[in-house]
């Protein structure tokens, strides 16, 4: 069983400057075996939609939507559930899963001995979380259309919108993960995402909150996500939409920058 080994005879191949997608390739190999786990990410918002949207929708026929236009309650709450699931999905991916690979399996230490860099890993992992998020959002969008909850073809923008929400939360999640020391620290993650989910004008409009609290709600990134997806889904656009998009975009860029820097510091000592 003689095998010719190793010493290269061929010259080194060309250098590819961008290789973050190699992380996608790796994650694809992992997730094609556990595809059932992925399905849960789709069902969660759908179950919420059926229970809260349809249930409460029976009691509350109409609420004031963006710009005060009255809208059907189920159509009001559906885009917010889509936004919340985009947040939960990417946060889960960039905190728990990444921490496991970073601290326990030392997966990234190995990867960094290849031409891959820590920036490739950061961009690759955030990007992967977005691809997953886009799949969920598309599926949820189909459910929304089927239930007649969308107002116009503008509603298709909810899909890239959900990806933007994922980007904002995913990169901040990854940045946060680089500060985590043990699994206990992850209790803090739900301590942040849970109230965001409940208090970001998800289930009722901002006007319901006392005036004094409203500025606080406006600080919630998920509030901007909810309002953005609502605007897309209901086809009601005004200048505030630009604010929501900018907020999420800036949040995502800052998070990605910190995540990449911190990851490099952790892995290359």
């Amino acid at each position, binding site marked *: *069983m003689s*095998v*010719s*080994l*190793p*010493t*290269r*005879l*061929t010259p*080194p*191949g*060309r*250098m*590819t400057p961008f*290789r973050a997608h*190699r992380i996608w*390739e*790796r994650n694809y*190999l*992992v997730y094609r075996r556990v595809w059932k786990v992925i399905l849960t990410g789709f069902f969660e918002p759908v179950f919420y939609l059926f229970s809260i949207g349809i249930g409460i929708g029976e009691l509350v026929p109409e609420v004031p939507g963006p710009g005060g236009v009255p809208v059907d309650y189920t159509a009001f709450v559906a885009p917010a559930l889509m936004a919340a699931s985009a947040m939960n999905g990417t946060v889960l991916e960039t905190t728990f899963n990444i921490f496991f*690979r970073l601290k326990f*399996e*030392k*997966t990234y*230490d*190995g*990867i*960094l*001995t*290849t*031409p*891959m*860099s820590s920036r490739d890993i950061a961009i690759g992992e955030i990007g992967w979380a977005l691809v997953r998020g886009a799949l969920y959002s598309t599926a949820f969008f189909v459910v929304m259309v089927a239930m007649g909850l969308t107002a116009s073809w503008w509603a298709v923008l909810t899909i890239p919108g959900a990806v933007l929400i994922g980007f904002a939360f995913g990169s901040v999640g990854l940045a946060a993960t680089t500060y985590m020391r043990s699994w206990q620290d992850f209790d803090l993650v739900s301590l942040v995402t849970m109230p965001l989910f409940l208090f970001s004008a998800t289930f009722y409009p901002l006007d319901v909150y006392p005036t004094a609290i409203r500025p606080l709600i406006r600080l919630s990134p998920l509030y901007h996500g909810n309002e953005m997806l609502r605007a897309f889904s209901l086809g009601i656009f005004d200048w505030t939409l630009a604010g929501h998009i900018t907020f999420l975009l800036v949040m995502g860029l800052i998070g990605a920058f910190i995540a990449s820097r911190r990851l490099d510091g952790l*892995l*290359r*000592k």
Partner: protein
Amino acid sequence: MSEPLVQARGLTKRFGDFLAVDAVDFDIAKGEAFGFLGPNGAGKTSTMKMITTVSPITEGKLTVFGLDPAADGRRIRQRLGVVPQEDNLDMELTVAENLYIYGRYHDMPRADIRRRITELLEFAQLSDRSDSPVEPLSGGMKRRLTIARALINEPDLVILDEPTTGLDPQARHLLWDRLYRLKREGATLIITTHYMDEAEQLCDRLVVMDKGKIVAEGSPRQLIAQYAPREVVELRYPEEQMEGISERLGWLEGGIEILADRVIVYTDDAEATQRELTIRDIHPEQVLVRRSSLEDVFLKLTGRSLVD
């Protein structure tokens, strides 16, 4: 001789106040098996990490393939195979997938990788475990898979950080056999170890490191010839008799080393030394005669035992 594959001048690594590598110089030539021998904490791993470009150097100069690790990290890593001290196999992937994805990290075409995987699994004696998850593999198998993974890109330089630490003797010998084969086929190897036998078996040339410094350099044979007389007589005593032992044995020529439970006597003629002991009515609990080894070189140089 052509330019060295790896060259270090005054290479230094500091972690805060701790000086891990203290201004070391070395040259590693193409085709040689070069060893870093030393106890834990001697600075071997820190040196390896600087060569693999994952750890920035603090001071001094280092070139790998004539390139600067700080500027050309990617280009260097493209030609390296790295076997880290602790296996960091991808536990979420199977045996074959581990090799496959490392090929992809190196931008290899899929068809080339598939051909290479078949060869490497055979080399690592893991062909029948191709689709197995990594987790249930034995320590020796994981180690062989890590080595196979390091070879996926046909590296010009293979860096092995304590390749056999923690393996049982059988697994060690199998691994040595594989590494020996790599060497025979012309691979350049850098091996760190705290086992003398490993260094003697595998390394053409080595440096002995202690507390961040290189304290000796040469081939295993040269080092033994230079630092340790031909033979060693080990005298074992019960603990209570170790007190005052240096006065009682002070007459011995060639030098002695006193350890916790035994005295090591260096000599060119073990039989004569033993006769002398009998004449002087010195009767240790146990006497062991052996040829001197790299362990003795290390003892001579540092006054401490190597494996601690």
